[in-house]
């Protein structure tokens, strides 16, 4: 008997040591993701750690013979693999949102089981963590599905604002907290599964209400936040079923999502709490530009080839409009042409150029742009004044000097790329309407050194290359 207890204790110790090692492997993997050269290996290490975690769990809980587990793993693997291989790079934000969502749903189900005392004890701590896992996991699932639906244009990209939206959001949040407290302390006179189902419904409503209000350009923040939530949901589910690896990895993911959320908030000049309250959009009634359209059509044909040919230092500012027009390969072709004429071409990437953090870098890499030519805002912002030419493709708000120079606009204080400091600017843009934030861009009215090529960037750049 003593022997048996001793053996179990050793198994536990071994288990925790192995979990610790796996957590360190995961952290090492993430550490390696800070350099392009080592990042793929880092990703492999993280995947390896999870694979070992699965084997370890099967052995530790003595559930190797349970056939249903393998069916689940196989089906999930095939679906995940198929999605990952098939997805286009421009669809990356919606894939990440979708994957976040399914992970959140899985955590919610684990929480559901745990609340019923399956896979864990029925003490107070397990109950409250189980309910929290249900709540956070369900919010993550529904929030992510709305975000993915918007990004994939299954539902309108425009913010949907209900009457009393903020009050509804706050109200639902309060009810959510109240149900968690009720579910935790409710005695034997209530049916646990009914509590849990009610919580799922409330959390689902909250997730929906909280994300329908988000518009397209606010997606970087929303996706980062949902990413964080999916990690937190996993960690809380881990607390509920006492799985140390789940807690550790979930905590890491939660922190990373939060960090990226902070970075995105800073780059968009928004506060997290206003986003949590649902005030994510800076949208105003978009004013039609005061500029007469005829002037512009003339100027749009007159992009000066000589300026392009003589430029030695060129900075390209790509925006999401470039990605929408699928013009990244043409931009690369234009950059190659400039390089052939002896120009040094750099790309200036604003943190929110795209629909998720770092999205623009991926899109340009796909078009064979060397990642070493991609510069972060802070590293390149002083170079615009000394550059001969700046080419803006499908970017508006992120180069709008009003953000820096004018008070009281929705983008005032948002850090921008100082493209306006450059003496010569060529702008490829779809039209002259204000950008997402609804603020007129003074660049369009500048008399000297600005040339506008309006229309689909894929067409206008192609025309330019043909005339070259």
């Amino acid at each position, binding site marked *: 008997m003593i022997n048996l207890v001793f053996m179990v204790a050793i198994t536990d110790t071994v288990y925790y040591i192995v979990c610790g090692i796996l957590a360190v492997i995961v952290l090492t993997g993430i550490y390696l993701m800070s350099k392009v050269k080592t990042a793929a290996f880092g990703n492999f290490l993280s995947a390896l750690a999870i694979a070992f975690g699965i084997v370890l769990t099967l052995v530790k809980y003595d559930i190797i013979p349970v056939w249903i587990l393998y069916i689940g793993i196989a089906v999930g693997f095939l679906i995940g693999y198929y999605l990952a291989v098939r997805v286009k790079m421009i669809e990356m934000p919606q894939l990440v949102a979708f*994957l976040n969502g399914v992970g959140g749903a899985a*955590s919610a189900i684990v929480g559901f089981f745990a609340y019923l005392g399956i896979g864990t004890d029925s003490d107070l701590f397990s109950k409250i963590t189980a309910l929290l896992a249900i709540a956070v996991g369900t919010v993550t699932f529904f929030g992510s599905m709305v975000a993915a639906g918007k990004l994939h244009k299954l539902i309108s990209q425009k913010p949907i604002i209900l009457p009393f939206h903020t009050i509804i959001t706050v109200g639902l949040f309060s009810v959510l907290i109240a149900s968690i407290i009720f579910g935790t302390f409710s005695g034997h006179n209530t049916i646990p599964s009914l509590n849990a189902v009610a919580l799922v419904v409330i959390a689902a409503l909250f997730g929906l209400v909280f994300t329908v209000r988000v518009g397209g350009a606010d997606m970087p923040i929303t996706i980062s936040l949902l990413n964080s939530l999916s*990690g937190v*949901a996993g960690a809380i589910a881990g*607390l509920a079923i006492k799985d140390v690896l789940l807690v550790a990895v979930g*905590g*890491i993911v939660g922190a990373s999502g939060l960090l990226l959320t902070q970075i995105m908030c800073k780059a968009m000049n928004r506060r997290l709490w206003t986003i949590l309250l649902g005030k994510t959009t800076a949208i105003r009634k978009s004013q039609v530009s005061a500029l007469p359209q005829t002037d512009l059509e003339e100027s749009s044909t007159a992009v000066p080839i000589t300026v392009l040919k003589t430029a030695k230092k060129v900075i390209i500012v790509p925006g999401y409009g470039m990605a929408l027009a699928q013009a990244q390969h043409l931009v690369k072709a234009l950059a190659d042409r400039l390089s052939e004429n002896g120009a040094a071409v750099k790309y200036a990437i604003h*943190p929110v150029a795209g629909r998720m953090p770092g*999205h623009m870098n991926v899109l340009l890499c796909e078009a064979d742009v*060397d990642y070493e030519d991609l510069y972060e805002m802070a590293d390149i912002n002083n170079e615009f004044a000394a550059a001969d030419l700046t080419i803006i493709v499908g970017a508006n708000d992120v180069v709008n000097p009003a953000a820096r120079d004018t008070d009281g606009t929705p983008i005032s204080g948002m850090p921008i790329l100082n493209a306006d400091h450059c003496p010569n600017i060529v702008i490829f843009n779809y039209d002259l309407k204000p950008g997402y934030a609804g603020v007129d861009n003074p660049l369009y009215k500048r008399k000297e050194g600005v040339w506008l090529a309006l229309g689909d960037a894929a067409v206008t750049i192609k025309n330019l290359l043909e005339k070259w």
Partner: protein
Amino acid sequence: MDSIQGILLVVFIVAALVGYFIINRVPSLLHTPLMSGMNALSGVTILGALVATAAAIHSPSPLFGYIFGALAIVLAMINVAGGFVVTNRMLRMFTKKEKHHD
């Protein structure tokens, strides 16, 4: 709350803090692969799904256990596999250019 639960809370806080500082080093160039990699990691909830499912099929309502358990495992595994594979795909795109230079 027993001692294991206390330890778990400490693990959560330490992991979050250490993760925060390590992730802070990742340049914005790699933020999308970082995020999809993190995303894959959040599928670690599959460990919980495996344990809970194995327990649930021996509960008073095994059918419920089979259905929701399998669902949780499938969903978590989609997250894990999809996340890691797509991250790898993106990172290969970044390093592809390395070879052109050499």
